[in-house]
C-alpha cells in the first residue's frame, strides 16, 4: 500500500502499519517537526494525539510522538529528542489543541516544548515539578507528600469583572474538574478549565501489563466509552501482532459500539431536556436507557459492555434469539424516541433554551481541531467509521449526521439523528452478521512491536498507540476526543449567561477520566 499523496509530499520514509484503518509510521528529526506539521495542516490534516516516551534505556534519548490524520489516513510520527535537552518547537500556532497535550507530555515525561504557556496540566501537587512519572526509572509506587498547588489562571481585569470558581466537586453527579468563570453581570467573559483531577496513572499502569492484560485497563479509561477504548486497544494489539479477528467478531464489536452510542445518546438527550427545564424528558429517556441497559445485561453479561471486546475478537457470542431481541428493541425504541423528538421540537420553552445557545462556529471548530459529535454539529464531516475498508462499517453504508448551526440545538439534533442511524445500523448488523468464530487465539509476539487503534466512539475518535517489548506493553498512550473538545467548550460559552453553562456543558458532555488518564 502506498501512503496517501498528502504524506508523500512531506518527504518522509513512511512505512505502513498493519491496522484495520489506514495508518503509517515515520521518523523525523526535530528540526523537521514544524515543517511537517505545517505541511499536514496545509493539506487539511489535523493533530489527533500527542504524547512522549522515555527511550533512554535503549540509548535513544526521548521521543515525541504525534498522530496526524489526513483524509482518514493516520501518520504516526516519532521525533527523537536528545537525552540531555529534550526540547521541541511549539506547535500550538499550527494545531491549537496541542497546548494541553504538550503540557501533559512535559508533566509525565519531561519533554519540553518552546511554548510560552509552561503551566503544569496533569500535575497538580502530588509529585514535584522535577519528577516525571512516565520516565522508565520512576517507580509506579513512588509517593510524595501533597504540596499546595498554586495554579496561575489567566487573570481577567476591568470594571465589574469578577470570578466564579466551580469545582472540582460539582453540584451534580458528574466527574470532577475546575471551571473558573470571569463574568460581567450575568455574562461569561471568559471560562478557563483546570483538569487533571482524576489522573490515576493509566499510562504507567499499562507498562505493568502484557498485551492481553492491557484490555481490561483500556476498558476502564472512560466508563461511558468502554467499547470504543477496548476496540481501539484490541485493534492496536491485532495490528502489532499481525492478525485479524474473525469477521463475526468485528460485526459483534460494531453491535456493541452502536449500543454504547445509543445508550449515551439516550442519557444525554434526557439530561439535555432536564437542563433545559423539561424534567419529563429526563424521566422518559432514562426509562428507555434502563430498558436498553437491561438487554445489554442479558445479552452481553454487562450493562455497559465492559470486557466484551478482547484482543483477537469478542468474549461471547450473541445467538439468533439475541439478534431478534436486538432488532425488536431497536424498532420499539425508534418509535418511542420519535414521539419524544416531537415533544422536544414542539416545546417552545426548551427550544428557546437550545437555539443559539453555546454557539461554536464551523470555522472556529476547524481551527481548534474539534472532533466527533461536537465537530459534526459544527459542520465538520469527521467520522472514523467511514474510513475506507473498515469492516464491518464499509458494508453498512453509514450515513454521517452533520448540522451547520453549532449551537446546543445542533448538538441535540445530531444526537437524535445519530441515535436513529445507530438503531438502523444495529438492525442491519444483526441481519447481515456473518456466521463463524468469535475470536482468533492470540499468540504473544517477541521483540519490539507497534500498533495503532482508532475508533469512533459516541463522543468522537479514540486513539490508542501501543508499543510492546517481548509481549509486554512498553508504552500505551490512550487519547480521548475530549482533549480537542474541552478547549472548544471554553469558546462556546463566551457571551452566554452563567445559568446556561450546565446546558452547554452537557451538550458537549466531555470526559474527565478519559482525558486525565
Amino acid at each position: 500500500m502506498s501512503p496517501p499523496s498528502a504524506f508523500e509530499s512531506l518527504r518522509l520514509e513512511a512505512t505502513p502499519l498493519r491496522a484495520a484503518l489506514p495508518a503509517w509510521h515515520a521518523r523525523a528529526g526535530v528540526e523537521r517537526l514544524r515543517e511537517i506539521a505545517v505541511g499536514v495542516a496545509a493539506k487539511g490534516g489535523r493533530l489527533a494525539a500527542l504524547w512522549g516516551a522515555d527511550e533512554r534505556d535503549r540509548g535513544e534519548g526521548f521521543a515525541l510522538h504525534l498522530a496526524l490524520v489526513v483524509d482518514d489516513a493516520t501518520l504516526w510520527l516519532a521525533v527523537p529528542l536528545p537525552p540531555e535537552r529534550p526540547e521541541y518547537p511549539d506547535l500550538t500556532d499550527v494545531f491549537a489543541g496541542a497546548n494541553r497535550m504538550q503540557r501533559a507530555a512535559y508533566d509525565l515525561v519531561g519533554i519540553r516544548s518552546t511554548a510560552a504557556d509552561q503551566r503544569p496540566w496533569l500535575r497538580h501537587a502530588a509529585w514535584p515539578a522535577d519528577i516525571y512519572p512516565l520516565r522508565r526509572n520512576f517507580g509506579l509506587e513512588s509517593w510524595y507528600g501533597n504540596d499546595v498547588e498554586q495554579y496561575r489562571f489567566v487573570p481577567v481585569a476591568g470594571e465589574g469583572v469578577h470570578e466564579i470558581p466551580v469545582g472540582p466537586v460539582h453540584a451534580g453527579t458528574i466527574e470532577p474538574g475546575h471551571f473558573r468563570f470571569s463574568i460581567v453581570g450575568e455574562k461569561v467573559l471568559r471560562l478557563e478549565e483546570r483538569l487533571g483531577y482524576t489522573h490515576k496513572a493509566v499510562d504507567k499502569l499499562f507498562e505493568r501489563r502484557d498485551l492481553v492484560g492491557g484490555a481490561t485497563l483500556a476498558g476502564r479509561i472512560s466508563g461511558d466509552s468502554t467499547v470504543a477504548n477496548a476496540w481501539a486497544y484490541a485493534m492496536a494489539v491485532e495490528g502489532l501482532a499481525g492478525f485479524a479477528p474473525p469477521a463475526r467478531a468485528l460485526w459483534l464489536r460494531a453491535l456493541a459500539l452502536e449500543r454504547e452510542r445509543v445508550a449515551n445518546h439516550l442519557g444525554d438527550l434526557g439530561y439535555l431536556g432536564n437542563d433545559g427545564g423539561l424534567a419529563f424528558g429526563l424521566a422518559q429517556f432514562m426509562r428507555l436507557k434502563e430498558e436498553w441497559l437491561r438487554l445489554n445485561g442479558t445479552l452481553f453479561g454487562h450493562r455497559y459492555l465492559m470486557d466484551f471486546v478482547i484482543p483477537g475478537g469478542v468474549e461471547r457470542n450473541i445467538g439468533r434469539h439475541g439478534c431478534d431481541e436486538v432488532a425488536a428493541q431497536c424498532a420499539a425504541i425508534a418509535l418511542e424516541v420519535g414521539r419524544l423528538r416531537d415533544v422536544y421540537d414542539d416545546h417552545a420553552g426548551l427550544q428557546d433554551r437550545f437555539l443559539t445557545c453555546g454557539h461554536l462556529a464551523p470555522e472556529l471548530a476547524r481551527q481548534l481541531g474539534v472532533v466527533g459529535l461536537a465537530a459534526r454539529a459544527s459542520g465538520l464531516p469527521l467520522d472514523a467509521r467511514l474510513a475506507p475498508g473498515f469492516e464491518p462499517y464499509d458494508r453498512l453504508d453509514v450515513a454521517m449526521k452533520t448540522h451547520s448551526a453549532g449551537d446546543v440545538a445542533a448538538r441535540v439534533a445530531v444526537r437524535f439523528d445519530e441515535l436513529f442511524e445507530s438503531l438502523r445500523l444495529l438492525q442491519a448488523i444483526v441481519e447481515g452478521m456473518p456466521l463463524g468464530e468469535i475470536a482468533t487465539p492470540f499468540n504473544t509476539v517477541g521483540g519490539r512491536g507497534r500498533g495503532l487503534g482508532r475508533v469512533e466512539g459516541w463522543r468522537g475518535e479514540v486513539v490508542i498507540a501501543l508499543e510492546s517489548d517481548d509481549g509486554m506493553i512498553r508504552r500505551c498512550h490512550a487519547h480521548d476526543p475530549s482533549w480537542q473538545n474541552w478547549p472548544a467548550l471554553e469558546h462556546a460559552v463566551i457571551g452566554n449567561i452563567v445559568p446556561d453553562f450546565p446546558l452547554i456543558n452537557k451538550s458537549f458532555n466531555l470526559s474527565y477520566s478519559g482525558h486525565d488518564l
Partner: protein
Amino acid sequence: MLKLLRQIAVTGIVTEPPPRPDPTLRLVEQRLKSEVLALFTGSLAIRHVDAGSCNGCELEIHMLTTPHYNLEGLGIRFVASPRHADLLLVTGPVSRNMETALRRTYDAVPDPKLVVAVGDCGCSGGVFGESYASCGRVSNVVPVDVAVPGCPPTPTALMQGILSAITGRARG
C-alpha cells in the same frame, strides 16, 4: 402539550420495589443511634463525590433517580452541597489530585454523617490500586461505613448499600 400528556399517561408507573438492606456490606458497625436513624428514614440527603472514578459508577448512580428505581420515592435525594448532606456517596479510586477535595467535602458534611464507598475501585482500588497518583480505596482517605462492590455496581446494589447504611443497630 397534548403529546406530552399522552406520553405520560401511556407510560404509566414503571417503578419497581426497592431491595432489602444487606448487613454484610458494612465495614464498621452502625455508629448512629436508632433515634438518629429514625430521622434519616424517609428524609436522607446524599452528596455524591467522584474522587477519581472512570465515570462508570456515575452512570449507575444516575440511574437511581430514574423511573425504574425512583430513589426519591423512598425519601432519599441528591443535594448540591455537602453542607446539606447526611451521606457521602464516594466513587474511587481516590486520586491524589482529589484527595484534598474529598477530605474537605467530608469535613463540610455536618455530623452525624455516613459514607458509602462505591464500586470495586472505591472498595479496593480496583484496577488502579495505589500508586504515585492514586490513594486506592476510599477508606484510605475518609472513614467508610458501607462499601458496595461491582464494576460498576448495579442500581439495585447501590440502593441496597444506601439502605444498609441507614439501618442496623449501634453497639451500646
